[in-house]
């Protein structure tokens, strides 16, 4: 109980703002109440249009978007892609669907993580905390790491190629950084799920697979023939090329 209270306090200080996009009024209200108890400030949106307006407005950008995929009007996938077009705002999708292709579609659209209904505020808070840890600095070293022709800057959470920034989301950056720190050694799938998403042994491998795909699309010259993020079949991944700290 003590640690929980401390965490609540810690995040309350940072006044993390959540944008809760959910069309069901009752769920929205209950989640708002419970998330407020967890120490978050909650902004609500009942439709995708509303959510996009709030974000475009730009006056009070949320720290994390909680996005229901089933929305009237513009659906959640569309909202997700549009938010991604404008930046790397962390998104957790809240889905009632668990079919593989639906989860994958949501992740492909740019979500950083997902939870399935029924979900309670405690579980959501755990996912939010893990996500914010990746957003708020990688901690540890600030030295640049070179992966092939990429320069990974942990301090700024940025990746450069020949001086130009490669736009990555925080999760994609964290994934690349985790692999880069291993310096060419293999990082297992379980380790990646744990270090990037804070999942235990049983994280959803689809989460990892889709993010690896997304990362490769952004950093590889030929995503079909990856040279920087290399698969080690049956084990995990490692950075290719010459990774030098």
């Amino acid at each position, binding site marked *: 109980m003590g640690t929980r209270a401390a965490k609540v306090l810690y995040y309350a200080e940072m006044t993390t703002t959540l944008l809760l996009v959910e069309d*069901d009024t*009752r*769920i929205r*209200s*209950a*989640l708002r*109440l*419970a998330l407020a*108890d967890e120490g978050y400030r909650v902004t609500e949106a009942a439709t995708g249009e509303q959510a996009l307006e709030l974000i475009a407005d730009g006056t009070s950008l949320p720290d994390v978007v909680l996005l229901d995929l089933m929305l009237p009007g513009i659906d959640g996938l569309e909202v997700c892609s549009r938010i991604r077009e404008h930046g790397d705002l962390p998104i957790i999708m809240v889905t*009632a669907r*668990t*079919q*593989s*292709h639906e989860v994958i579609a949501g992740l492909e659209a740019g979500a950083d993580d997902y939870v399935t*209904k*029924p*979900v*309670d*505020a*405690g579980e959501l808070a755990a996912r939010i905390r893990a996500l914010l840890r990746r957003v708020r600095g990688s901690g540890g070293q600030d030295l640049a790491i070179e992966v092939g022709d990429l320069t990974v800057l942990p301090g700024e959470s940025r990746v450069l190629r020949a001086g130009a920034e490669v736009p990555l989301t925080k999760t994609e950056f964290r994934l690349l950084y985790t692999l880069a720190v291993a310096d060419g050694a293999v990082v297992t*799938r379980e380790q990646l799920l744990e270090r990037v998403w804070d999942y*235990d*042994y*049983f994280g*959803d*491998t*689809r989460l990892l697979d889709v993010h690896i795909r997304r990362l490769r699309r952004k950093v590889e010259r030929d995503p079909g023939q990856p040279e920087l993020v290399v698969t080690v*079949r*049956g*084990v995990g991944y490692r950075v290719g090329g010459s990774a030098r700290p």
Partner: protein
Amino acid sequence: MMSRFPLRARVMAWFSLVSLIVSGALAFATWQLATGYMIDQRERSAVAQAAGNARLVEAALRNDSPALRELLTGLAAGTESAVLLVDDGDWISGGTLVDPRRLPSAFLDMVQRGEFARQRTVLDGVPVLAVGLPVRGQAATYVEVSPMRELDRTFRFLSWTLVLGTLASGLAGALLGRWAAQHALRPLRRFTDTAAKAAGGDLGARLPTTRDPDLESLATAFNDTTERLQHRVARDIRFAGDVSHELRSPLTTMLNAMSVLQRRSADLPAETRQAIELLATDLRRFRRMVDDLLEMSRGDQDTDRSTFELVDLAGLVRAVADQHACASADTLQLTAHPWVLADRRRLERAVTNLLDNATRHGQGLVRLAVLHGADHARIEVDDAGPGVAADDRQHVFERFARGSPAERDPADGGVGLGLALVAEHVRHHDGRAWVEDRPGGGARFVIELPEVTP
């Protein structure tokens, strides 16, 4: 009434019998024709030879040659025959082979009357042919008795050949019958296999379409039945899935409203607090049930294997055990390290559910082991409970298979889907799950998965 013998044996017997009768009849006819012809030929030549010899004897008699006896002896030696001459009722014999009085009396009568006669008989175990010819112009009859050893040997050989041939044909008939039965029963065997598969739960099993008019209606009827059954099962499952799906939204509201209430329960009167606790407990159970049902309906629909990966089974079991209260280090036996292709999350769920089951119904876990089987990887979960009665062993893996509601412990959180999910997830991995007796008492739940080499 059903015959006591299987169809295959009956077909074999009939083929064999028919074949025996046909080949037996043929053999009999062959025997009749061949023996008749050969005896006829032999008799003809014997008569011709005797007629020639009789003319010599006639000449000798006419000249009243004193050398008659020598002639007879000579003839007897030349033809390997016994030669006799009846002259006025006296027997003059050339060669000592045959005592004339041992020839059949009917033959002797005819000879003595001076008529042509021939007779087959057996003397001292030797088949012989006796030919009697009246000697022209003399009151005498010439008799020649020639043995038929050669012919007898031929007959014996022929008879053996025919008997063996008949038997061989009967045997061949039986083999043909067996082949025919097997051939004719092949579609039936396929039918049996398919029906067994369908009975085993694979309602997707279908008989191949056939143009054979004898089988078509059966195949069509079977396929229609399983198809209807499959649809019905799918509809039921979809319904359960839809219901659980619809429950997600209110459940999300309830769970979150409840957490708000619980957080403030310290400020509430004792009765209210108690009521909230009751609600919270049942809400947790409710949630678990909906989760399980959703998992179940997803398992039924989700057939894709894109989430499958190479998994070190011992590592997975260890990870599950680490999270589970009931598994201590001394219950773990992870000596083998088989690899399997698996959806880690589902397999984790299956093992977790078995551990839950051991805790709830098995009075605690005794042993959790990972082993190599014959090309299968095995997980064994042993408990200290009373075991599962043989009649219930299939039943426990069915959905909502548990005691009556009165026996349920509301605090245990079980909703009766745990083992059904185990079966479901293991089937998804092309594996098997079952329960048996643990040596020394208690139940042993076993999961068997196809092992792969990484």
